[in-house]
């Protein structure tokens, strides 16, 4: 606590000859900013500012929820958006708070670092004149060895000791301030780690269907979503390719997942070719990236044979709908269907598409809308056929997982039938073309990331913890001993031999100081019984209230 009382004094510069208003203002603002009160207010603001980040959907986490919010609250949402409420943790005001806080922090610890470095080198101070004024005080017969013997006892107890003639000054517990400074410095290092990660890190998400034809290489175009830090270019991405060879999943009877494993083949210029397994909780670690398994599902393999007899195969992933039975929805589009082999011309209004619901375990009876179990116990594919202009040529980016509903609404695409297919079954459409459900492939949802700040983050978190404990549990305190010649006039109880006066000063909140003081006094006077008594007393008594004065 005294630490704080010291601080403004040491920070105050020497008086100037000509007071400069602006300088004075700056100095005052700086002092204000680095004061504990400001730090407290900023901490509080930081906590408050984080709340909307948990209450409102955030773009970085769930962009689709943000869109929903815009639909549900058409008036409020744009206004919230303007103040950054959907990107709280990147917003100007959130950043302002933590940057101010960290400025305050730096301003706060720099002078303390300097003072502490000085204190570490300095010797314990001269004993105060009146030891009886200190919170702890005792008078006892001086031990045989005088001040030197006292110093010996203290050194054994790892005090920093200074003997000045008949006086001994000792101090202990620098660890508190060391820990405190280490902790606060680590906080800054944590922020640096986070900043490095966001500048130089990158990430991408994509689905990967099993099989050699579906392998992908680590380029920006290959990701459905990619985020590159401001200091990263597409060319900086490490070059490697991944192929999903096998995916295993085990489920409980309730449909709850129990075990996953994905086996991939890695190769590419930046990675040695090899086969590797990874899973939830144990990502695939590559040299400059990590690959995380985030999800999985089925990609139905659908073969369409058009009326000219030409076939094409689609094995696009069907996206899971979120139930435990892995009911999935998706689209198999054949924009190149029904090209007349005679003319080679594409008929833009005879493109084919099938939307479908895939049920790994279809119920025994209709409706066939929900799968009952996540593995393929009774697989069934519920298809709806569409013919017409799919709208893929118009240059409007469409989703590969959904039929463009505008084309349906405007009548450019027409529904031509629905049918439930089992594996291997064929459905002949009105124009004689055929669609077959050949089987399924597994796919996995992957996140590929690189965060160059993570090591700094981890190391600084370690220091942060160590520093925190030193700061919370360290206790700075001083004791002073003064050997006095006996005063014969006073009739001392020990009959003429010299006396020693002892004082103790805890420099930080330390309720147990009185006990420690008593133990030291006992040890110095060689009274082991007293030491024992002090030991047992330390545990059992309620000293909290009475020791208040010791602060």
């Amino acid at each position, binding site marked *: 606590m005294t630490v704080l009382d010291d601080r403004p004094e040491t920070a105050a510069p020497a008086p100037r000859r000509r007071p400069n208003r602006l300088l004075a203002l700056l100095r005052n603002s700086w002092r204000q900013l680095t004061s504990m009160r400001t730090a407290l207010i900023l901490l509080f603001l930081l906590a408050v500012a984080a709340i909307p980040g948990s209450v409102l959907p955030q773009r970085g986490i769930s962009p689709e929820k943000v869109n929903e919010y815009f639909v549900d609250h058409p008036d409020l949402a744009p206004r919230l958006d303007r103040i950054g409420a959907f990107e709280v943790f990147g917003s100007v005001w959130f950043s302002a708070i933590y940057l101010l806080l960290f400025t305050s922090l730096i301003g706060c610890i720099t002078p303390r670092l300097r003072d502490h470095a000085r204190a570490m080198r300095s010797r314990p101070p001269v004993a105060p004149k009146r030891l009886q004024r200190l919170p702890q005080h005792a008078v006892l017969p001086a031990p045989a060895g005088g001040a030197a013997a006292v110093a010996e006892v203290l050194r054994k107890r790892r005090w920093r000791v200074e003997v000045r003639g008949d006086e001994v000054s000792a101090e202990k517990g620098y660890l508190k301030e060391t820990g405190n400074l280490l902790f606060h410095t680590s906080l800054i290092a944590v922020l640096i780690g986070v900043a490095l990660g966001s500048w130089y890190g990158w990430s991408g998400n994509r689905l990967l269907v099993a099989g050699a034809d579906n392998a992908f290489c680590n380029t920006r175009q290959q990701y459905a979503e990619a985020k590159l830090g401001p200091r990263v270019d597409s060319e900086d991405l490490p070059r490697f390719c991944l192929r999903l060879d096998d995916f295993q999943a085990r489920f409980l009877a309730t449909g709850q997942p129990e075990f996953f494993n994905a086996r991939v083949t890695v190769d590419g210029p930046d990675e040695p070719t090899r086969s590797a397994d990874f899973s939830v909780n144990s990502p695939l670690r590559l040299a400059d990236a990590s690959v*995380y398994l985030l999800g999985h599902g089925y990609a139905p393999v659908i073969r369409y044979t058009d009326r000219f007899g030409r076939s094409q195969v689609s094995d696009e992933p069907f996206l899971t709908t979120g139930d435990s039975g892995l009911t999935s929805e998706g689209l198999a589009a054949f924009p190149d269907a029904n090209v007349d082999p005679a003319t080679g011309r594409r008929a833009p209004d005879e493109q084919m598409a099938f939307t479908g619901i895939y049920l790994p375990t279809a119920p025994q009876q209709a409706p066939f809308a929900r799968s009952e179990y996540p593995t393929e116990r009774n697989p069934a594919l519920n298809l709806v056929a569409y013919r017409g202009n799919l709208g893929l040529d118009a240059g409007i980016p469409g989703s590969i997982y959904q039929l463009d509903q505008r084309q349906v609404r405007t009548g450019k695409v027409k529904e031509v039938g629905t049918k439930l297919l089992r594996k291997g079954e064929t459905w002949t459409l009105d124009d004689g073309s055929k669609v077959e459900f050949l089987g399924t492939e597994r796919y996995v949802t992957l996140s590929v990331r690189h965060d160059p700040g993570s090591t700094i983050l981890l190391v600084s978190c370690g220091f942060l913890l160590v520093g925190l404990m030193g700061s919370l549990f360290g206790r700075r305190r001083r004791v002073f001993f003064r050997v006095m010649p006996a005063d014969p006039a006073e009739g001392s109880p020990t009959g003429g031999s010299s006396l020693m006066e002892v004082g103790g000063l805890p420099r930080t909140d330390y309720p147990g100081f009185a006990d420690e003081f008593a133990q030291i006094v006992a040890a110095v006077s060689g009274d082991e019984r007293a030491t024992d008594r002090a030991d047992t007393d330390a545990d059992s008594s309620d000293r909290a209230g009475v020791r208040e004065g010791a602060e």
Partner: protein
Amino acid sequence: MSALSDNLVSFAILAYLVAMISHAVEYALGNARTRVAAAPVRELVGAGVGGGGASVPTPPAPVPPSGAAERSARRARIAGLVAVGATALAAVLHLAALVTRGIAADRMPWGNMYEFVLTVTFIGVAAWLVVLWKRPSLRKLGLFLTLVMVLLVATAELVLYVPIVPLVPALNSYWFVIHVSTIVFASGIFLLGAVPAVGFLMRAGYEQGKRSFPYTLAKRLPAAVSLERLTFALHAFAFPIFTFAVIAGAIWAEAAWGRPWGWDPKETWAFISWVVYAGYLHARATPSVKRNVATWLAVLGFLTMLMNLFGVNIFFTGLHSYGGLD
């Protein structure tokens, strides 16, 4: 085994109820003077080894109690001992319920909110017994603690109860044990810390002469300074553990979800709690901030912990909804 665990929880609630009632009886009968005076006398012996000890104020000599007062004081003490005994019994039943639940599930019993609350409350009560053992004079705080126990454990049993299921793979990792055990432990200590914090706020008001409703409850509580000390000691103990738990959570999140920190609602509220508790420690270390302002921050910190436990699980969906994949 699972049914046994459920029964043990019910018995534990009963035992907490008995403890609470006994504490209330002690409270009603109690004559604060007799015991408060007893403790500091021993105190003097310790401080006075060197012969000086001048700084320790001498407590007023105990006033010899009159006959009737003495009888009611004796009864109060018996009620207090019964309360402590019932609390200890309840803690044993509580522990047994957790152990049997763990055996039945074949894993650590921290897989869902029900088990989580059950474990946090157990840590709270176990830590309380340790505090009681070290500072018997704080016993009267037990009334508030057992009240909290009854409320939370009963809420767990009546509202949050779920049958045993194994863990989803996202939770199946040794980080689960490290992260969750430390979070549970820190939460339990924070839970216990909130009790003297509230007690201090009431008692400090009472000592300043406030005699309106919540303050009068504190009439027989231990002295405000000792409550405040206990509050700080518990929070200072729990804070590094909580910090470690959050860091462990970040390490685990990196392995499971590919990022150490993603501002998922649970993470956001853990951040908020951490910042509020850091604010408490700062405020307490700042002489210019009044102790009751600082203590309010501790109470606020606990409210944010509650928000994270109940609010986030119920109102928000995030990766932490114990779903993991899909």
